[in-house]
């Protein structure tokens, strides 16, 4: 394996791979937060997750096109997506709460096709990107590069994680969300407006995805049919981390990013995705096997 040789002979590239992995993992983490939230609170597996990310990117991109400074695109995308998420909840998603999980899987799959095509019609299918003019820092004599925009994404990921944790612990809405997640009917009898809780949760999810998308368009590229890549990664991350565990989401997102970088480096880009999905399957089977020994199931 020539590629492994490189890593042994020039260990500095390990640093680059780790760094790149963590930095891109930060983007995945942002996409995955919301999925964990919506899954845990509403018991909905949200396949449109990736489309929210891409749409967030397009919002930031559109603003950039009309001359808004790129970094304003991040909050703008978050706000726009929050509104969209809230509306989607009121239109469709509320009908999926309390239903078979499979129904939500399929319905949100339908929504994702819909959103993809609408983005295609509205923004066109071109590959788009926003140039923030932010540079890269080069360390270790230029051997390792740290793009500032990705660093920003990384910092933002951590900040949002902390904000989410504090919000969940301290705020009234956060409390209501936690209560609803654990027992919705009980929350209702305590006077919690679960419908509002769900709408807000879904809105927050979309908003975080929107912010992620803005960062994606500034650090990578987007186009309308790319959402699934983020959805699937969110899945993987959430399944590995478990629901309602934000620190776990961050950790496994970084882990996934690093694993992908190494897979791409060692096996070649063509097996990068296959590796990720096989990893998901293996982790699932492993968890199931471990539980199976106690005669429990992964449910």
């Amino acid at each position: 394996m020539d590629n492994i040789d490189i890593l042994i002979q020039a260990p500095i590239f390990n640093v680059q791979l780790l760094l790149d992995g963590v930095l891109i993992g930060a983007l995945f983490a942002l996409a995955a937060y919301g999925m964990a939230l919506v899954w845990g609170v509403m018991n909905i597996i949200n396949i449109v997750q990736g489309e929210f990310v891409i749409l967030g990117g397009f919002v930031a991109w559109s603003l950039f096109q009309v001359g808004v400074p790129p970094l304003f695109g991040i909050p703008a995308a978050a706000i726009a997506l929050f509104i969209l998420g809230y509306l989607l909840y009121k239109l469709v998603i509320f009908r999926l709460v309390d239903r078979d999980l499979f129904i939500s899987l399929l319905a949100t799959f339908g929504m994702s096709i819909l959103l993809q095509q609408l983005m295609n019609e509205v923004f066109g299918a071109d590959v788009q990107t926003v140039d923030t003019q932010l540079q890269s820092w080069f360390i270790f004599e230029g051997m390792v590069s740290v793009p500032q925009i990705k660093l920003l994404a990384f910092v933002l990921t951590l900040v949002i994680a902390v904000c989410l944790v504090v919000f969940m612990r301290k705020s009234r809405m956060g409390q209501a969300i936690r209560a609803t997640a654990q027992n919705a009917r009980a929350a209702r009898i305590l006077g919690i407006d679960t419908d509002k809780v769900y709408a807000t949760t879904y809105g927050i999810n979309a908003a975080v995805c929107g912010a992620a998308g803005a960062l994606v368009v500034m650090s990578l590229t987007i186009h309308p049919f790319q959402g699934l890549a983020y959805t699937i990664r969110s899945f993987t991350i959430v399944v590995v981390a478990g629901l309602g565990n934000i620190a776990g989401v961050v950790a496994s997102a970084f882990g996934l990013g690093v694993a992908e970088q190494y897979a791409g480096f060692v096996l070649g880009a063509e097996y990068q995705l296959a590796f990720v999905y096989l990893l998901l399957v293996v982790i699932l089977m492993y968890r199931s096997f471990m539980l199976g020994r106690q005669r429990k199931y992964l449910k």
Partner: protein
Amino acid sequence: MSGIMSKKSGLEIGGFIAILIAAVVAPFLFPGLQTQLTMLWVMILIALTWDVVGGQMGYNSFGNVIFFGLGMYTTAVVQVGLFFDVGTYTDAQGAAGFALTTGQYFSGLALGLLISALIGVVFAVVIGTGLLGLRGHYFAIGTLGLGIAFGEIFAGWDWVGAGSGMVPPLFPSGIGLQPKVFYYFMMVLLTAVTFFSLRRLYAGRFGLAINAIRDDEDKAEAMGLRTTRYKTIAWAISALFLAIGGGLAGNVLGFIDPRDSAFAGATFGVWMVLMAILGGKGLLWGPVVGAIVFHVTQELFWTYLLGWQRVALGLLIVIIVVFFPLGILGWLRERKPELFGYRVEDEEAASEGNAS
């Protein structure tokens, strides 16, 4: 036992004869629609086989398309590999000079389908051992992941053409047989065999057992059912027919793309689920009805909503799942349970049904 027309009756036999006649006549009546008609049978087949595991057994698989793709590749590889070196063939991307004689073609096809069936079953058993221990959405996600991984692996594998895909051998010409007609009837035959095999299976202990697993697997275990065995058998049966179907479908399509036709999770993979749900999952006739309605609708969207057909499709999916989660036959069963064999013996007990 569940299923409209599951009782032997004049109605049912009449129905079968009508369908048979329609199936035989259709390709000649509408020669322009031959491919679409063949695809209709492919759709019915994939919906039926998905329903074994997804509907009847309640294990919602997003990965059944694996068997479809495996069948496609296996059949093509056998068809080619019997007579040429597969690597050279794919390298040349089906360049001329690889023509088969009539005898070679059909023996290759037969053997290919046979081996596909075998590989499908073996794979179902192997991955089933790991995956069927997962429950609920973890199973759905695990199978989804595996399906995508398969697509990616085949797309990276040079021997089978990697991302350039693979072209199955050309149908021998000049034997007075149209490839379209031939594959149409092969598909009809396979679907019919599948349908009747499943019908027979559902009527016996096996059908009840997988239904029990769907309704409450813990209870089934507590009652002594060998759930693992039933689950594996069910998946293997599904894989068997699906793999053969894939082998035929590869030849129908004429070009195997790893992600877009073989392991096409986002199209065939999801459609098989949708069609079963649309018709009514867990009901023998559900997938059949669902596939017909879905396929026809989709064709219409395609023709009349140029460029917007997928928007319409997305909307349709949302509407189907949100408003008709029971599907067409499930809905019918709610209204007219008698048709499905649910009945109360005496009137009196029925009217006091909720006072126990």
